[in-house]
């Protein structure tokens, strides 16, 4: 996030795009609701009638994957009505003229047609955003990024920030809400094929030299490969050994059959985790790790705040903290490290990571969480980025981007569009929430949310088991009739992989820049399952209560084809 969570409560205008905030980030949604209570306008741009729309001034219900035409048209109105921040554009940006020409074709009428909305919704949103600027905050999450044009979607939002000068000021910004507790920290630490810790580029010789000096070892020069590329290389036999820490790739990645096939193709797979996940079951060696409540260290949250994680209990059996396991692995590979504790690791990391330079366990224990960049011990941290200049050191570049439809759109054979996401009381692949008692009462099993009118046309009632198939796979799931889904659009989460492996169905397309998979759009067909036995539902419940992992085939013959496809 360029700005901070608490600032969202103080802004005058909130543009929330592709974020089911009340369910995926409930505590951030409180700040949004408070802003509305304080008089802020809230515009929710989302294909589904999500809960947050109850607080919205306007719900712009665009079609899936039409974010760019919408935001380009908003820019079009701002420019043609001369509502932009000319000072900001002149002093802090580049490329405005080309951008202004580019968005001329995206008139409100033209885009409204593509987005399935009215031109007025675009015009009003543009005027309100510009009127509130610079105290207008844009928030987005995976509804924007998990598209084959995800990086362009983000740029189309960034353009609005540059246009109205909502960057580098309080209560504003362009704010991605991060989905996992330490996804920010994993990036900060350099777990990126192109970046060393602190987002320093590995292919820049000067940067590499600094690390070679600090670590006393030569470093590989060429950038590494992303997960998506790695999986392709695995299938081609070019990857021999894989070391996975704390990831349930088989379930969380799109087109799950592909992910599973990839991991089965490597000679040697090591998985380090707290449970024998679906991914760990494929491993040659499984290393038992400590959970968060047994680990010393830090997490970095969505607003770049580094906070202390402290062990409350010892790990079970012989399980060990990840830090200990890795330090031992270094020694076994003939590269012993002097570091012994998580604190030692943090000290080394801050010495090579300028944005963490001023952070220490002592400070975090004393002052609480601190937001990077934090250069030295006297630096209080950074509440919002890009204050006097952009943190990249360059001006803000306008990005003329064009509409790119989802890689797969409904057709005659697969007439429905499936989009995926989270529900409040289940999380990700369900390895954690699946073990919390009582949660089976909140969301007992996976559900296919669809519009009641669509259901009526297919003769489906609430609770019917349906087969959902795409060109890649099939799952069976119970139907949930809800007005949340507009006609033609259906929704599932992926939190019940032991029964409903949603990602068997999802698209294998991904963003060509970031390689983020297109989870938010794939074409499916839906039919009433021949298998309507009540036993299935009872079994779903029983399994979840017991926390067992069973092959779905034992329970649901209807899914049996999946084994064949491996």
């Amino acid at each position, binding site marked *: 996030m360029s700005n901070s969570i608490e600032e969202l409560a103080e802004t005058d205008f909130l543009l929330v795009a592709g974020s089911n905030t009340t369910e995926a980030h409930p505590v951030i949604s409180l700040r949004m609701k408070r802003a509305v209570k304080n008089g802020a306008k809230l515009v929710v741009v989302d294909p589904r009638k999500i809960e947050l729309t109850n607080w919205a001034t306007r719900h712009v219900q665009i079609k899936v994957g039409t974010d760019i035409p919408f935001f380009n048209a908003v820019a079009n109105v701002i420019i043609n009505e001369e509502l932009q921040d000319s000072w900001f554009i002149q002093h802090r940006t580049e490329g405005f003229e080309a951008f202004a020409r580019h968005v001329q074709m995206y008139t409100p009428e033209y885009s409204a047609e593509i987005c399935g909305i009215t031109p007025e919704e675009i015009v009003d949103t543009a005027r309100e955003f510009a009127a509130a600027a610079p105290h207008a905050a844009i928030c987005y999450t995976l509804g924007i990024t998990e598209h084959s044009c995800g990086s362009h979607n983000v740029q189309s939002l960034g353009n609005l920030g540059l246009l109205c000068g909502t960057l580098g000021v309080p209560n504003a910004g362009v704010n991605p809400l991060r989905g996992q507790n330490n996804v920010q920290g994993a990036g900060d630490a350099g777990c990126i094929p192109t970046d060393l810790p602190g987002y320093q580029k590995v292919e820049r010789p000067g940067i590499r030299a600094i690390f070679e000096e600090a670590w006393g070892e030569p470093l590989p020069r060429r950038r590494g490969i992303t997960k998506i590329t790695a999986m392709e290389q695995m299938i081609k036999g070019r990857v021999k050994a894989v070391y996975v820490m704390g990831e349930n790739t088989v379930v969380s990645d799109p087109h799950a059959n592909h992910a599973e096939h990839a991991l089965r193709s490597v000679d040697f797979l090591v998985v380090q985790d707290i449970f024998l996940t679906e991914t760990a079951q494929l491993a040659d060696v499984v290393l038992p790790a400590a959970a968060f409540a047994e680990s010393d260290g830090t997490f970095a949250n969505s607003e770049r705040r580094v906070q202390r994680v402290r062990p409350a*209990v010892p790990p079970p059996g012989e399980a060990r903290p990840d830090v200990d396991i890795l330090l031992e692995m270094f020694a076994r590979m003939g590269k012993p490290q002097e570091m012994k504790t998580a604190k030692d690791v943090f000290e080394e990391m801050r010495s090579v990571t300028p944005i963490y330079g001023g952070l220490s366990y002592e400070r975090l224990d004393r002052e609480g969480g601190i937001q990077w960049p934090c250069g030295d011990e006297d630096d209080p941290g950074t509440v919002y980025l890009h204050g006097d200049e952009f943190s990249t050191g360059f001006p803000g570049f306008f990005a003329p981007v064009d509409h790119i439809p989802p890689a797969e759109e409904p057709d005659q054979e697969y007439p429905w569009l499936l989009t995926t996401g989270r529900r409040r009381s289940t999380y990700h692949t369900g390895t954690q929430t699946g073990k919390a008692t009582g949660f089976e009462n909140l969301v007992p099993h996976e559900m296919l949310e669809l519009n009641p009118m669509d259901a009526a046309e297919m003769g489906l009632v609430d609770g019917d088991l349906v087969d959902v198939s795409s060109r890649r796979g099939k799952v069976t799931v119970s139907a949930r009739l809800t007005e949340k889904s507009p006609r033609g659009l259906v929704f599932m989460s992926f939190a019940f992989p032991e029964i409903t492996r949603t990602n068997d169905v999802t698209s294998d397309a991904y963003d060509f820049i970031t390689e983020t998979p297109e989870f938010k759009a794939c074409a499916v067909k839906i039919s009433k399952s021949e298998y309507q036995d009540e036993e299935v539902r009872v079994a779903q419940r029983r399994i979840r209560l017991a926390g067992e992992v069973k092959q779905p085939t034992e329970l649901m013959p209807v899914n049996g084809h999946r084994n064949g496809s491996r």
Partner: protein
Amino acid sequence: MVVNLVFGEIMTSVSVNGKVQGGTKWLDLRVNGVAVQCADGSRVLDAVKDAGFEVPTLCYDERVGPQGTCRMCLVEVEVNGRTEQVASCTAFAEDEMSVGTHTEEIRDYRKTLLELLLSEMASPNTNPYTNKVGPTEFDHAVEEYDARWDAFPRLKVREKAAHDENPFIQRDYDYCIACYRCTNICNEWEQASAITVDGRGQDSSIFTFFGNELMDSPCTFCGQCINTCPTGALSDRKVVSQDISAADVDRTQTICPYCGVGCGIELLTHDGEIIGAEPDFTAPSRGSLCVKGQFASWEFVRSEDRLRHPLIKQAGGTFRKASWDEALSLVSGKFKDAIETEGPDSLVCWASARVVTEANYLMQKFARVALGTNNIDNCSRT
């Protein structure tokens, strides 16, 4: 917006959240003789706290602001020649105001109020929260003012919520003092509108609409009502249903393991096992949690399904237990083989958005230094 103050005997600099603010009018007060400076618009309670004193505030939650109903925060103020007793949470601070928080009269008054509240509560000896987790805010006040449960004739005790099978929130309204913090946090802060106040005076009670069970209400089970409750009338059913005793409960401040908001939590432990979670009110998340942080952040840690030993896959595809030495020898041997035969880029490491940054730092360094490849990625794309 109420601001934090710098105060006390040394008053050379005045700051708000560490930054000097211009244009603010500053007021000089004395609390129990201690000089304190605070911004115009502050409440007397803010001055009291910043002077380092505490008064009981049974109906006050800083997130929803003052309501002035419990009257426990009453203080004596002297200003412009007038002396009066005011609820410090609602009264505004004034320049040259002198505040007394613990005069004999005020202490007696608080004790009487507490005893009146006790006269309409079930016995403190059976309070589930007090017994299982520890003293409540109310218990602390009772102890400080030496209030007795039987000082007054027993009044009608509020009835426990009717049969409510939800697995999360226990409602023992016989400990309810009708402070309305739960309804305020639910309606004003969470804006969930699951509970409200029904009836008046001694007959008032906390009510779900139509008297429904919580599962059938708009309740999202964020647990904020439990955490703001000063008496234990609302408690975490998962915690208080365990066989534990408050004397052995410890707390560890850490961070919720779910989404990227990073709410502060305190893990409750008992005999080396986690027994529950509560919000860390000192964290930037200001005590907020959702259903996952409150009710799902710890059971998976003590799950029977946790991996307890390294496992090695045998011919035939089943796992067998292995020692760390054996497992790590096998792994390092295979890694070395792959590097020798196919080169470092035939190896791939995937780090995790779920584990601590320190482990991620080591994972990327391991890939680059020990294996010699930049093939390191994490799941930020998925």
